[in-house]
Structure formats: structure tokens, C-alpha cells
């Protein structure tokens, strides 16, 4: 599983960071950083929740 963020769409609402702070972080510069782009399958449910809850639909999963 690979996390893909469309940074043209992302507006740093930080919802993903609230759901999975170990995978996503919005820093003081207000930009989103993906801390682990290729998490294990154990994390799939949480990443899927991030995909669904992202207000900008900026997150997708490959594989």
C-alpha cells in the first residue's frame, strides 16, 4: 500500500493527522508531510478513513 497525496488539492485541514498522527503531520509551516508513505496493511483501515474524511479528497491509496 502506498499513500499518495495530491498537494495541489491539499489545504492542510489536518484531518488525516488527527486520524493517523504517525503517518501524517501538518507542521508549523502549514504544509502536510507524509511520515510514512508505505505503511503496512495493518494501517489500511485508518488510511482509508483518511481518504474518506479528507475535505479536499486529496489522499489516495495505490496498491
Amino acid at each position, binding site marked *: 500500500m502506498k499513500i499518495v497525496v495530491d498537494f495541489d488539492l491539499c*489545504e*492542510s*485541514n*489536518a484531518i488525516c493527522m*488527527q486520524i493517523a498522527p504517525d503517518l501524517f503531520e*501538518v*507542521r508549523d509551516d*502549514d504544509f502536510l508531510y507524509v511520515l510514512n508513505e508505505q505503511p503496512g496493511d495493518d494501517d489500511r483501515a485508518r488510511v482509508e478513513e483518511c481518504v474518506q474524511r479528507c*475535505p479536499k479528497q486529496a489522499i489516495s491509496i495505490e496498491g
Partner: protein
Amino acid sequence: MAGLRAAEALRRGGFEETIVLIGDEVHAPYDRPPLSKQILSGDWQPDRIALSTADKLADLDLDLRLGVRATGFDLGSRVVTTDDGRSDRVDGLLIATGSRCRTIPGTDDLDGVRVLRSLDDALTLRDDFDAGPHRVVVVGAGFIGAEVAATARGRGLEVTMVEALPVPLSRVLGHEIGVVCAEIHREQGVDLRTGVGVDAIDGGDRVERVVLSDGSVIAADVVVVGIGVVPNTEWLAGSGLQIDDGVVCDATCLAAPGVVAAGDVARWPNQRFGEMMRVEHWDNAIEQGIHSARRLLSTDSDALAFTPVPWFWSDQYDRKIQLAGSVRPDDECRIVTGSLEDRRFVTLYGREGRLVGVVGFNRPRHVMQYKTMIQDDVSFADALTAEI
């Protein structure tokens, strides 16, 4: 939105029988927030806002009935009737009929008086904007009115915004932040009139002027009314369900055995805040849709209470405003980061010693971290001194 997310959750939860998804709009489920921004500005075409793909919808194996309106339900017989003349006996019912915009009486036959709720509303208003109106009047400086005003200004249109309150959004965000919102609109060239009502909207076939309660008259080609919404519950009259500003549910979102509600239409006691809530936010439609779907599949003994920290955002000009929790005008209120002058700040709200709310202007990370603290039941004193 709530309906689609609920249907997905039912399938994820292992429900393999028939799911009928009824929606009165002809469009497949779509995302509403871009309507007042990217769709209205013309930056995006409607295909950008689909909530699902044709393939994913097909995988859900739904009996999808678009352009069909639910007209009745009877709790005793468990029959749903629709305006295409059909009636279906159901085992479970998830009510997600949403809400509709309040309108100003007497303006129904006046062309150019608009609301913004649906994709069709947005495309109609976009056409109005494309036609190059001399002036757009926005009635109501709440979040939807503010976003429409911002988009119209972005398109170079002249905008007058009329607000009954002396300070816009002061009931939601408090007086000081409301003042900041008003300043931002005025700096962006909006003619903002506050503390004044609308006495009349006049014209021939098409709107020509708006008459305010202070006697002033504004010439207008387009009027956008953003004065709140009402839940769509009329179809449930006589159903046997309790209706009181929404479908009244228990703490788990159950309205009656086998009947749940979600989204704008649902009213339920949120035990986290000890108050009845009906939440009109985008994120709640998703979360409550999923919760209510799971509730339909669970037994009474293992059902969970729905206790979210409500959250929403509003993008206006270059400001991202976010609010999480339950904020009341009489809550204790403190700025913890930034300043009102910078228009980049975080304000916390405390009640009875607890952190209950957070408002941020261009501070998304902080808002989410404080939202987590609200979920974790952190005291107001600890939140004020937390390092984040």
C-alpha cells in the same frame, strides 16, 4: 453524502441483502463544499466533485434510485413510499434526507433570487455570475453567504452583503472574531451592511432591488439568500417517528427499532457535551452516516453512543476558518496562538472548567490538536498551558 457513506459502511459491515438508496436529485452523490467555491468560481466542472466512481458504485450493488423523492414512511407496516408511485417494505431505514435552504416569503416567482444548496443551484448561480451582473446582494453573512461573497468578489463582481446581526457570525464565533470577519469582507471590497433586515425584494419578472429595514434601497440583478436551513422531515409526518427540528434519535442515533437517522436531519443527545445536537456539517454527514449504518447492524446491547466533536471549516478569500466542538456565546474564551490583528490565531472556549471548543484562522494543525484534547476531556486550564 450521509446516505452513500452509510451504504458503504453497511457493505463493509457484511450486510449482503438489498440496499435501496433513494435520492431526490438526479445526480449521483457529490461533494457539496466546492459548490460555493470552485464550482461557483468556474474553476471546476461538476465532474470534479463526484463522491464515488461508477465502478465503486457498481461494486456496492445498490438499488440506486436517483431523481426519486421519498414521500412517506409508516413505522407500523415499515413501508416507504416514493413519488414514482412505488412502495417498499423495509427491514431497516436510514433517514438522511438532509435539509433545505430557508427562503424569503414572496420571492418564489422572482427570477434571480437564489439559494445555494445543490449542484443545480450552483450552476444556476454560476450562469448568473457569468452574465456579468451589476451587483450581487447576499442576504445573510453566515458561512455560506460569506463564501458566496468571497467567490463573487474573486470574479470581480460588486457585492453587497446584508446581515441582521450587528456583527456577523457573533453568535457562533463570538463578538471579537465576528468583527475580524466583517473587517476582512470590507477590505476585500464587500459593501457589508450589518444590523439591518430585508423588508422587500422587488422586481418585475426578475429581481431589480432589495429594500432594507433602514429604508435604503439597493439595485440588484442577483440576490443570494443564505439565512440557514431547515431539516427535510415533512415526508415523515404521521410516520410514528418523533419529529422536533429533525428526526429525534437516542444517543446511538436510533429513532425507532430498525430506524436510524444521520446528517443534517438527525437530532440526538451528544453525551460528550450533554446536549441535544443537530449538526449540519460536512464531516458529520460522513461520520454519522457510518455510525448509523453500524447501528442498524448492531443489537441494542452492543450499540455505541454517538459522541463526536463536531468540526467544520469555511474558506473565504485566503482565510481558512475552522471550528471544532460546541461553542456558545457565554463560554470563557481565550486566544492561545497568534493574534486577531494577524488574522492567524487560535481561540479556545471553556465551560465549567472543561475545554469545549476551538476556533482557528489559518491554523489547521492547532485546531486538530485541540480537537483531540476535547475528545480526551482535557481541562480548560491544561489546554491553555499545553505546548503544541
